């Protein structure tokens, strides 16, 4: 059984609004948040805006201190082992800020200095990382001359310099061009193959689906779902699947017929010229009933295909359900 590298247990975090030093208001960002990331996983951390993703990451990286609960890395509480744990973490924030007057190599030397790495080691590892990240020719350029994407890649190099055990990425692809996104994806998969555990927070669900083995969905500061991607999709599909139908004419009579039937929901209707496309949400065993009834009503069915459930569907379903409850 693979051990947990990162474990959050009932973490609570409140933000305090101060006026003249006095707390005038507090609001809850994380509410008994618990989840685990196993060694070697690429863990996708999903949630709508304001769900608490960045706050969670800040608590894990020690930028913020949680009010209640525990955060452990490799079984050790970060509160008592701050130094040791931070040595195991590589962090890439969403908004990358680097000292503009430094060159790429100087930046690496500055941040590498906090891991007791000698200049020669930093230089050697740094050059290798810059090459991998496509910044090999820009090592002597100042950050000021870098584009946003280049800065992000340089920040990633600083996060990887000390060979961390877990890499925490907050919206890593924002600001990167498609080539940069692809290069990053390849790099992350390569690093993962070498044993690096990755926690990835992103709002680009396709990216998470493509990269991650497991996901956690956070909403209103709570983890509402944590499973492998395939399992999550399977569960949702069991509940209801989407069916895409192409018919000659979707008339009012057929529409009323479907609406009346319990367990069927019409999600979308599109006029494609000669044909019409209808997307239904329904339980799998109702598919024969739908086709029989539509044909009996005189409709011609040109195609019928299940609509693949994406992580986006899961994400929306889960967060909607949570809102509803």
């Amino acid at each position, binding site marked *: 059984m693979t051990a947990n590298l990162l474990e959050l247990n009932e973490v609570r*975090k*409140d*933000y*305090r609004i101060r006026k003249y030093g006095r707390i005038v208001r507090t609001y809850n*960002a994380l509410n008994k948040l618990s989840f685990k990331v196993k060694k070697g996983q690429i863990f996708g951390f999903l949630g709508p805006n304001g769900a608490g993703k960045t*706050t969670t990451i*800040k608590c894990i*990286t*020690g*930028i*913020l*201190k949680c*009010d209640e609960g525990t955060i452990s890395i490799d079984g050790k509480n970060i509160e008592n082992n*701050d*130094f*040791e744990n*931070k*040595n195991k*973490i590589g*962090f890439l*924030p969403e*908004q*990358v*800020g*680097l*000292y*503009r*007057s430094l060159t790429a190599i100087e930046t690496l030397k*500055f*941040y590498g*200095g*906090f*891991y*007791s790495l000698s200049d020669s080691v930093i230089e050697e590892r740094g050059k290798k990382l810059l090459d991998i990240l496509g910044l090999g020719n820009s090592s002597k350029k100042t950050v000021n001359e870098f584009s946003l994407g280049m800065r992000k890649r340089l*920040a990633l190099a*600083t996060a990887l310099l000390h060979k961390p055990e877990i890499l925490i990425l907050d919206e890593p692809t924002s600001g990167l061009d498609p080539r940069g996104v692809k290069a990053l994806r390849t790099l992350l998969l390569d690093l993962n193959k070498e044993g690096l555990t990755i926690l990835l927070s992103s709002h680009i669900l396709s990216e998470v689906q493509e990269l991650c083995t497991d996901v956690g969905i956070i909403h209103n500061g709570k983890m509402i779902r944590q499973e492998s991607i395939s399992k999550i999709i399977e569960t949702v599909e069991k509940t209801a699947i989407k069916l895409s139908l192409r018919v000659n004419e979707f008339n009012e009579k057929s529409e009323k017929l479907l609406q009346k039937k319990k367990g069927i929901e019409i999600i979308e209707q599109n006029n494609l010229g000669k044909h019409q496309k209808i997307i239904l949400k329904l339980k799998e065993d109702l598919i024969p009933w739908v086709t029989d009834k539509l044909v009996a009503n005189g409709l011609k069915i040109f195609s019928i295909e299940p609509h693949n459930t994406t992580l986006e569907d899961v994400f929306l379903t889960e967060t909607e359900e949570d809102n509803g409850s």
Partner: protein
Amino acid sequence: MDLREKATNRWKENYTWQPLLIAISIVIIIAIIHKAHWEITTETDPLSVWNERKMIENDNMTTITYNDQKLLNKTITFKGVLEIFPYTNTSIGSPEQSNGTFDEMDGLVYNENSYKKCMISLNGMRILVNGSLDGKFYKNEVVTVDATLIERNFTYERNGATIELESQIWEAEINDITLADERDYYFFGIEFIIFAIGLYFSLNRIKNLKEQMSFAKHIALFEFKRGLKTPRMIVLGLIFFVFIVGMGMLLGQLQNDSDSILGTMTAKGSIVQLSYFTFMIGSMVAIGVSVDTFHKERQENTMNLLLARPINRETIVLGKALGLTLVVGIPALIAQIIGLYFMITEGEIPPIGSMFAFLFFGQVMIFTMVTFQLCLAISARSGSSVVIYGLSAWLLFALVWALVVIAMATVIGVDINGENFENDPDYQQFASRIGLLNPGVIYQMVVGLFTSRTLAVDLEGVPGWLALLSVVLWPLMCLRTATWLFKREMKG
């Protein structure tokens, strides 16, 4: 949660600093014993005894006695601030003084017996010393005097009639006078050792202290290299350099000019004055270079990347404070040395101790102002707030402090309408004590203190040790506040 539980939790939270807190508590207890020791073994308020004195004048008889008859022939150890009467350190016995005139306050008639004797004033109490204090004791030094109340008989002329004078006078030998610091040093020594032990054990409790110190050095050097290159520092440094060197030269020249607008300058006065100018411009540069440190980092998002490294927030503040102090301090030190050189070549050489204090505490003062500004930079919410706070602090400490003191003195009832109110002892005492709230005034006090040979000096109402303690406490308090404010951000 009740108060006891809260206190217990707070105590546990401060595990690292527990030894230091215990040591400080012990130091406070020793300080109380120190104070009690003086109260028990000496009369620390000579004026209260002096006020018991009464003079009765009859037709041909004048008597000066004390209400408490038991005082006669009794030896009491008095402790107080030494004033040599009449404010110069000359001996009685010159032809002008030995003319048989009766001095009511001194309680004696000057005659040939007063030759080579000296009348001192200890917190306003007159004591006749058998010998000259020339070169042995100086004005404003805190001393103890074992004085004995002796009855003496004199005769003097009044309106042609011979008057008998029976006067009780406090008298002492030169050997009966000692600097108060001889006893103070035992207490200060013990207090310092206990504090150092507490600090040592607390530092030992800091996890990865060695690494954190190396990180502080790493950040300090980074800030130093970065800071020196900024155009702001180049401009401010140049102004600083020209100003201090120029003022040093001017103050040296003024020592030879009795009509100068700054009054007749002595070497000691010049170096204290130069320390004021150093503070005035040094604090401006210190605030100028550190004005946007934390705020700008927050704006440019450089802080999060730093905070995720294995470095404590305290180390970040310490590293930045040290780095920015180096940025201002090294050019300042060069300017101070050159300014001092010109002051000495144009005028006289001030005491070595004061030159050391001028240079060393100049660096401490810069560190204080940097950390003070860091507190403002951490707590301010916008860039303009940081600038306004910094500028206000500089204006208050360096330029308008004297006006603020006058305004406050008026509020507490000191009459500032009289001529030369600055020489009013009440005003001077108030100004000195309130000056402990201003790092610039403390810097001047300490430089002034080091022109003396002892810490047992009264700086117009502030004991020398308190000035020295303040100059150490100010940067420590600012640093602690800055780290506390910075750590508070962690709580969100």
